[in-house]
Each structure stands twice: as structure tokens, then as C-alpha cells.
């Protein structure tokens, strides 16, 4: 029988250490909504999403009450709109129309983000993919809850450098069009290499084309819980350190597994995966950077950071994998800058640089995430950063992503403020030397060889 100490431990994790389920995300296939007429497509999409996900908010709230564990976000991901809109969208405005429909669904269903305004272009862009990508800045301006992602590289296909170049320009334009809100549009736009199609986290969630009609994916959280557990083993050897992270990850993930199964039952939608990610928030004590400090660094970004993050990421996976019957998505430690108070501090005092963050992305689950850079950063430089990050993902057979905010009109020393889960960020300096001639070459970087590993 469960004892009083175990009950107290769980409730303390929730009350004091920010344990929560970060998101329940319903993935919905929109392939059945396709038509030649864009208005019909919009109508089909609205009907399908508001039918399939109509009880999402209610079910999430019920689960919160029953188990006493907060579920911070209820979200929806859909089939990449670049595919759904292929036969109906003839102009950028047509794609924006679909984005607005998605936004309306999010409002109606009380979900805080809807992801899938996306294109998968790792091998090449169809006319419709290109049109969708070009419509992103306007779509981000005109909508509140829609998230957009573009997958432009993979280990099997190489990197589509035409898309890399285009995305540098799209990110800049998005920053300009949403300049009144500190270029907030860029916080809802991410580029990927090796994007997983069952990721429940935003901004990169979309419902894979090989997925079922609808699916429940759950993203867990819990940096605060890991941090508190590590405080009790301060100064201990690496074996003890790793065992502690593993055991904590197991407990957190078990909560995620239960929530996923319960949500699946309540909504009568199959359970997809649990994403084992340590997802920070700007709240005090809910920081991945603080864990790195607890492991033994003065600040995130200090020498040793990459190694500490590598072990953290690996132990989270080792502990979590046994706790859930299906693991997927991004699974690992997230290192967004603006969403993590410890990261913000480290960036502000100069301990953490863009280059160090790039190194960190080689060993953790995502990439250069929520990093504000000067508004006058050239589009080609942004494309260069994207290409670097995509190369890391391509060669190392892992997911990498870039979510940069070239905040319009801001320079190093300024701050951008997004509020809520998206937090705030100091503008970080970017290498001033140009990569324009590199980015202007057209075509694709071929897929890497996977023998002769060095």
C-alpha cells in the first residue's frame, strides 16, 4: 500500500518543485479535408478539428482534478498544411486563410497553440510548400495561436539549402511584421532537421502523414523536481548523480504515462507517445540551467556544460524509457534561452554564448531555441546559423532545430519580452562575419555517408 511519505513526495513535487504535465497534444490528420476550393478546405478543417478535439479542454481539466497534477497546456497538431493546401492554395493569401481557420479552431476549443502550419522540404520544395513558406510571415502576423515549422534537412536526404536561404528571409520578415510585439511571430516559428512527426511540443508540433486519424501525445516536464533531487546528492560521485537523475525521470515519466493513458480513454483517441523532455519555464526553480549548476557549474555555459548536459540528457532518457510503453517526440533536455531563468541569467552575464549553445545542441534533444539576436542581423547570417545547426542534426542522426528571434529595432544590451511560457530574453551577439556567398549557392547539401565514423 502507498505510504504517507510517497504521497507527500508527489504532492511536494507539484506544490514546490513545479512538477506538471507540460502538454496534452492531440494530433489530427487533415488529409481528408483536401479539396480544390480553399473555402471548402477551411470549412472541412474547422469541422474536423472542432469535432475530434471538442472535449480536449474538459478532459484535461478533469485529469488535473482527479490526480492533483497540473496540465499546463492543451494543444493540437495537424497534418502539415503545405500538403493539405496543395491543391487549393494558389496564393499566399489562400494559405493565410487556412492559418486563420486553425486560429479560430484554437480559440473555439480553448487550446493555447495549434501546430502544423508546416512544410516538409528536406529533399525539395513543391510549389505549394514554397507558397506556404512565403506566407508564414503574414500568417504569424494575422494569427495568435498558430505555430509554424519547416523541416529542411534530414540524415537521409541532406540539407535543402534553397529552403535554408528562404527561411533566413522568412524569419527576418516575420520579425518585421510582428515588430509591435517584440517580433513575437518568430517565437512561433521553428526550422528543423530530422523533425519527429509525433512531437507534442510547440512550436514544432505537426501530425505526421504516416500517423493515424488522430492520436494523443503527452509532453512531460519537471526540471525543478530533478534539481531538488540533485540537491540531496551534492558532491557525490557520477554514479550516484546519474542514478538520482534516472530515478527521478522514471517517476516523472510514470505520471506522464498515466495522464496519456487516461486522456486517451476519456477522449477515445489512441495513445501515441510520451515525450520525455525536461521542459523549463521562466518560473523560479523550473530551470534546466539550474540543474547544470547543481551538477557543478558556476553558470550554464561554463567549461563542462556540454558534458553535464550530455549526461543529464542521457539519464533522463534511461530513466524515462522504462516508465512509458511508447516514447517518442524530442525526448531529452530542452535548452531554450528565453524560457529558462537560469539560461537568461547566464546569457545576461556573458557566461553563455551562441557558439556554446550550438555545442550544447550536439548532445541534447533540440537546438538553438528561443534566442533573441540583433534586429539588424542579415538574413544570410540567420541562414548560416540554420545550416550549421541542420548539419549537426544531419551528421549525428538527431533532431536539431532553430528558433531565433531577430528582434526588430533591438541591439545587444536590449531585452525582448514575450510573457507567459515564452518568457523574456537578452539580445545575444552574433558573429559579424558574412556567409552570404555560401548561402547564395543554390541546391542541396548531399546526405552524409554513415560508414567510416570518426
Amino acid at each position, binding site marked *: *500500500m*502507498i505510504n504517507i511519505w510517497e504521497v507527500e*513526495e*508527489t504532492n511536494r513535487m507539484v506544490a514546490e518543485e513545479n512538477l506538471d504535465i507540460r502538454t496534452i497534444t492531440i494530433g489530427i490528420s487533415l488529409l481528408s479535408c483536401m479539396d480544390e476550393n480553399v473555402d471548402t478546405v477551411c470549412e472541412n478543417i474547422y469541422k474536423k478539428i472542432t469535432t475530434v478535439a471538442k472535449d480536449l479542454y474538459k478532459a484535461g481539466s478533469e485529469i488535473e482534478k*482527479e490526480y*492533483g497534477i497540473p496540465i499546463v497546456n492543451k494543444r493540437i497538431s495537424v497534418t502539415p498544411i503545405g500538403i493539405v493546401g496543395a491543391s487549393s492554395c494558389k496564393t499566399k493569401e489562400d494559405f493565410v486563410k487556412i492559418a486563420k481557420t486553425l486560429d479560430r479552431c484554437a480559440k473555439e476549443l480553448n487550446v493555447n497553440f495549434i501546430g502544423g502550419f508546416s512544410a516538409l522540404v528536406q529533399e525539395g520544395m513543391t510549389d505549394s510548400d514554397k507558397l506556404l513558406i512565403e506566407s508564414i510571415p503574414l500568417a504569424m502576423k494575422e494569427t495568435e495561436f498558430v505555430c509554424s515549422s519547416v523541416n529542411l534537412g534530414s540524415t537521409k536526404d541532406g540539407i535543402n539549402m534553397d529552403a535554408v536561404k528562404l527561411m533566413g528571409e522568412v524569419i527576418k520578415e516575420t520579425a518585421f511584421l510582428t515588430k509591435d510585439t517584440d517580433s513575437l511571430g518568430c517565437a512561433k516559428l521553428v526550422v528543423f532537421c530530422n523533425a519527429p512527426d509525433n512531437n507534442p511540443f510547440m512550436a514544432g508540433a505537426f501530425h505526421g502523414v504516416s500517423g493515424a486519424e488522430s492520436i494523443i501525445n503527452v509532453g512531460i516536464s519537471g526540471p525543478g523536481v530533478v534539481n531538488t533531487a540533485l540537491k540531496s546528492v551534492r558532491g557525490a560521485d557520477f554514479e550516484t548523480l546519474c542514478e538520482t537523475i534516472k530515478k527521478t525521470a522514471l*517517476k516523472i515519466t510514470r*505520471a506522464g504515462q*498515466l495522464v496519456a493513458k487516461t486522456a486517451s480513454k476519456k477522449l477515445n483517441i489512441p495513445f501515441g507517445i510520451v515525450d520525455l523532455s525536461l521542459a523549463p519555464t521562466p518560473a523560479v526553480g523550473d530551470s534546466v540551467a539550474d540543474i547544470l549548476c547543481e551538477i557543478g557549474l558556476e553558470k550554464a555555459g561554463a567549461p563542462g556544460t556540454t558534458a553535464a548536459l550530455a549526461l543529464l540528457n542521457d539519464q533522463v532518457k534511461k530513466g524515462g524509457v522504462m516508465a512509458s510503453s511508447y516514447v517518442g517526440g524530442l525526448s531529452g533536455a530542452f535548452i531554450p534561452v528565453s524560457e529558462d531563468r537560469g539560461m537568461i541569467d547566464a546569457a545576461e552575464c556573458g557566461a553563455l554564448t551562441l557558439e556554446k549553445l550550438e555545442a550544447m545542441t550536439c548532445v541534447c534533444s533540440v537546438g538553438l531555441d528561443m534566442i533573441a539576436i540583433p534586429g539588424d542581423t542579415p538574413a544570410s547570417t540567420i541562414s548560416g546559423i540554420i545550416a550549421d545547426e541542420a548539419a549537426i542534426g544531419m551528421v549525428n542522426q538527431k533532431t536539431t532545430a532553430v528558433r531565433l528571434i531577430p528582434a526588430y529595432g533591438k541591439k545587444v544590451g536590449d531585452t525582448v519580452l514575450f510573457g507567459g511560457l515564452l518568457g523574456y530574453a537578452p539580445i545575444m551577439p552574433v558573429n559579424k562575419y558574412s556567409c552570404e556567398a555560401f548561402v547564395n549557392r543554390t541546391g542541396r547539401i548531399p546526405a552524409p555517408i554513415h560508414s567510416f565514423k570518426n
Partner: protein
Amino acid sequence: MEKVIITVVGKDTVGIIAKVCTYLSEKNINILDISQTIVQDYFNMMMVCDLSKSSEEFAGVQEALDNIGKDIGVEIKCQKAEIFEMMHRV
């Protein structure tokens, strides 16, 4: 069996257990286990109960206990036991 865990945390006072148990018995809720500690005048109690024969639904029990807690000045939580079983038992 519909197992729930009821926890009471707050400043110790007369009749906390009595009030909770009276309510549970009125609703035909069986108590399977009780444990209790007092640390620095703070009362900490946990009950394992079975709601399968209860005349009240889970949400109703949760609300009623919350109100009883507010009357006495302690915090009473009612959660389904599965969350603890999942987290602490493999």
C-alpha cells in the same frame, strides 16, 4: 475498487479526523488505511479510501472535502490513488 488518497495538512486542532470520517461514513466510503504524523504542530494525515460503494461521485467528494477543509482551516486533498501507484511502484 476505486481507490482514492485523501490527505489533510494544516495546523493541528480538535476533531479533524472526526469531521472527515463523519462525512466519509455518511457517503458510505470505506477507509482502508490511515496514517498520521504531527511535525512542529503541523498535522499531516493520509487516508486510503474506497469509493466503489460511495453514494457520491468522485468530483462531489473532492468538493465536499475541500469545503470541510476550509471550515476547519486545513487543506484537504482528494486524489485518485493511481497517480501515486504509478510514480512509486514499478
